[in-house]
């Protein structure tokens, strides 16, 4: 008799959720951020609808400040007949010259990511956006439903979430409203890595240690990914063996020194670590409730 492992059960739950979105929403989309969680989500979506194609497009909201290797990895998806990739850039933001150095990380993230996302959802009239957020990432994420309702203004109201019983998801909305759906809510960071290992899932090489040019700023190691990073007087990029635990806009994502160049080495390193995954993200540090506020405003 087959017995299921913990990962088997998580996988089955996620597939169930993906099929529910596809079957009950008119026009769903999967948020594709190119990171490891998105890669796992994409793999799960392939499994959910095999042998058919994935019945919804992927959407990348490009802030124009992503690592070059991320963009190359993303564009390789265009060759895959089973997936359809959409890329959205907030053109207003580009015209205003918004960027993390000129406007600060908060404004940059809000305009290029949160507003960009809302523009894209409105433009394509998506009524469901599937995301790879996990409850173990952050305190307010731990409070989020799997089918999480959003008003016509894309707002999350954490105080009036719909009760969510068993695995019965209430997907009913009025025109203009939408849901965010989180199929890997119950996975932990270790589960993600262990699944990547088990299923041999392809990742952006930035997750693995290599010699890369970095500068150190406010205790965060920033990679010099292109010429747009303004160097301060006396600042010299140094080659260091580093990798990234999470990926975002390169100026806002801290590298860690590491020699882990395989998935098992990464897991081993993670087991010995004493800081959380999001510490390398400048975005969460502003205030304790900052993630909750961003989410209320429509951030993923």
């Amino acid at each position, binding site marked *: 008799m087959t017995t299921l492992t913990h990962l088997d*059960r998580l996988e089955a739950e996620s597939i169930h959720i993906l099929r529910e979105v596809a079957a009950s929403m008119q026009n769903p989309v999967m948020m594709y951020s190119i990171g490891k969680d998105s890669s796992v989500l994409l793999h799960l979506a392939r499994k959910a609808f095999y042998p058919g194609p994935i019945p919804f497009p992927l959407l990348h909201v490009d802030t124009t400040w992503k690592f070059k290797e991320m963009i190359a990895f993303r564009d390789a998806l265009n060759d895959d007949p089973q997936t359809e990739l959409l890329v959205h850039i907030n053109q207003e933001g580009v015209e205003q010259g918004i960027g993390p150095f000129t406007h600060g990380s908060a404004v940059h993230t809000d305009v290029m990511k949160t507003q960009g996302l809302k523009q894209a959802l409105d433009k394509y009239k998506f009524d469901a956006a599937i995301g790879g957020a996990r409850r173990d990432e952050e305190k307010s994420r731990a409070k989020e439903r799997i089918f999480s309702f959003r008003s016509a203004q894309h707002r999350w109201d954490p*105080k009036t979430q719909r009760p969510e019983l068993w695995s019965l998801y209430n997907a009913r909305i009025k025109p203009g409203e939408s849901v965010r759906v989180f199929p890997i809510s119950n996975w932990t960071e270790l589960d993600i890595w262990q699944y990547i290992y088990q299923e041999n899932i392809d990742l952006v090489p930035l997750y693995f240690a290599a010699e890369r040019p970095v500068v150190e700023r406010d205790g965060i190691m920033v990679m010099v990914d292109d010429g747009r990073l303004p160097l301060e007087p006396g600042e010299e990029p140094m080659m260091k063996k580093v990798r990234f635990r999470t990926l975002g806009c390169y100026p806002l994502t801290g590298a860690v020194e590491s020699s882990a160049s395989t998935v098992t080495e990464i897991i081993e390193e993670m087991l010995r670590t004493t800081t959380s995954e999001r510490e390398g993200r400048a975005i969460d540090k502003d205030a304790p409730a900052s993630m909750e506020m961003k989410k209320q405003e429509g951030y993923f």
Partner: protein
Amino acid sequence: MDGYAAPDFANIEEYLDSQLKKSLLRFITCGSVDDGKSTLIGRLLYESKMIFDDQLASLKNESKKFGTQGEEIDFALLVDGLAAEREQGITIDVAYRFFATERRKYIVADTPGHEQYTRNMATGASTADLAIVMIDARKGVLTQTRRHSFIVSLLGIRNVVLCINKMDLVGYDRDVFDKIEADYRAFAADFGFENIQAIPVSALAGDNIVDHSENTPWYDGPPLIEYLDTVEIASDVKDQPFRMPVQWVNRPNLDFRGFAGQILSGSLKPGDGVRALPSGKSSKVARIVTMGGDLDEAVEGQSVTLTLEDEIDVSRGDVLCADKQPAEVSDQFQATMLWMSDSAMLPGRSYVMKIGARECQMQVTEQRYRIDVNTRAHEAAKTLDLNEIGIVNIALDRDVAFDAYQDNRRMGGFIVIDRMTNETVGLGLINFALRRASNIHRQSMDIGKELRASMKGQKPVMLWFTGLSGAGKSTVANLVEKRLAAMGKHTYTLDGDNVRHGLNNDLGFTDADRVENIRRVGEVAKLMLDAGLIVLVSFISPFRAERRIVRQMVEDGEFWEVFVDVPLDVAESRDVKGLYKKARAGEIKNFTGIDSPYEAPTDPEIHIDADRLSPEAAADVVIARLEQAGLIGS
């Protein structure tokens, strides 16, 4: 992030393998406000080394700012993740957290104690295998302890850990502990719990969480983590036959038709007989398809795609069952219901039910009784308010496949959705079917509505006059009927006052009775339509939802909503029957427009400005519109 204590492993592959072999336990903490549930979860996370340095540093900061423990760490802040929760020092919504020990992986749902947020507690409980019921040693068993324990028992959780907390505040007194344990066991005696393990703890100080506490030498049971690690949890669907609701029909090309879903119980091999419900058609499993290759066997919990040997009609929402042990099929049930909305459950109102992968329309036909959560006494009540529990009879607009909730949670649990707000307003557990679908055949008639109507040379239609008392509904309806009669049409008028004297003389003016009033009138009017008549209905019918139900009972185009519209002050100044005066004086209760709402039609077929138009002119408008639509006349 997972709580993998100090990593001691020689070989990473071995370590990963050992992780895979760990079993998973899902539990909740519940109980009354401030009993220490969140503090306990925070403590468990901390003890299982899953709080990182940066998180601990920010916890210390926040404890100073929001904490309830002075300079000390407030562990509840690890779990109470919403700004409003930290400000108020209470839990509002359920938080899901993760940790692991050497033996098990855990998903914990920390639920709120406040009565107001009971629905969030139920959310957490619906997926749990075990419940930790917290009690403040100084307070003992409270109403919320009883309510939560009752919900835990209803939802089918059989294992309870009774954490008697804040022992530090009662001097670790054994007598206090013994008395609370005895109280709890007495009231939970018939809850069907298989195990109740009572443990004296201090979530704040850490007593009996990981190790035996020196402060309670008289306690010889296991500390909490040891108990959680070793308690046996039998799968609640262990002996249940194969069930798989079809979520998705996978049809990438003409050669492949697969039925995708998650197996709720039982197992399956290629060649096994399956039956699709509610249709009852049988076939055999051809293949069990997954991206990793076809399987020889699929078991409870797996998400798979099945192909069948025969081309039988199966769509989303149908349930594939073991051919020899199929589920039941019915459209009428008795169910236990927990209401989760501020607007009361009203019998007769139309709601949406979601069960498995199917949505259908449901009505509560009758509430048998309500259950007092404190005493569990049965109380006579027709409706359910927020957080109330009742036993109800339910009718659906179609057959569904199900098993009783107590046999199979995911085959017998359903949610109730409000049709207008789309909120999830209730949860229900099917107890049994009130009739089997196979026994009932609606009598099919040889003489139909069309024939009856054409013999009268007319098209049947229902003119539904709605508006405030005194708006002139009956006057206009009466004039319209006279005109129709003069044209040789066969008509009948149902008038609110008249029907209330006869058919509905058992109904009053509460919201529930108003709903039932309209339901009955709607059914009678529908029979008259079927007889081929033009039916005029003249009822205040203040609620939009009920008018819509009647609209849905009949065919498209048969229901004509006629809104006889006057402002309240005009109707009140006319006051033909002197009723407004009495209502204002408080002599009549629940009077529409005064202390009971009137929900005006948003999109009526005919809108009559009865303030401006005379009744004769209003009747002209109605007749003209019916002629335009080709329903009467030349």
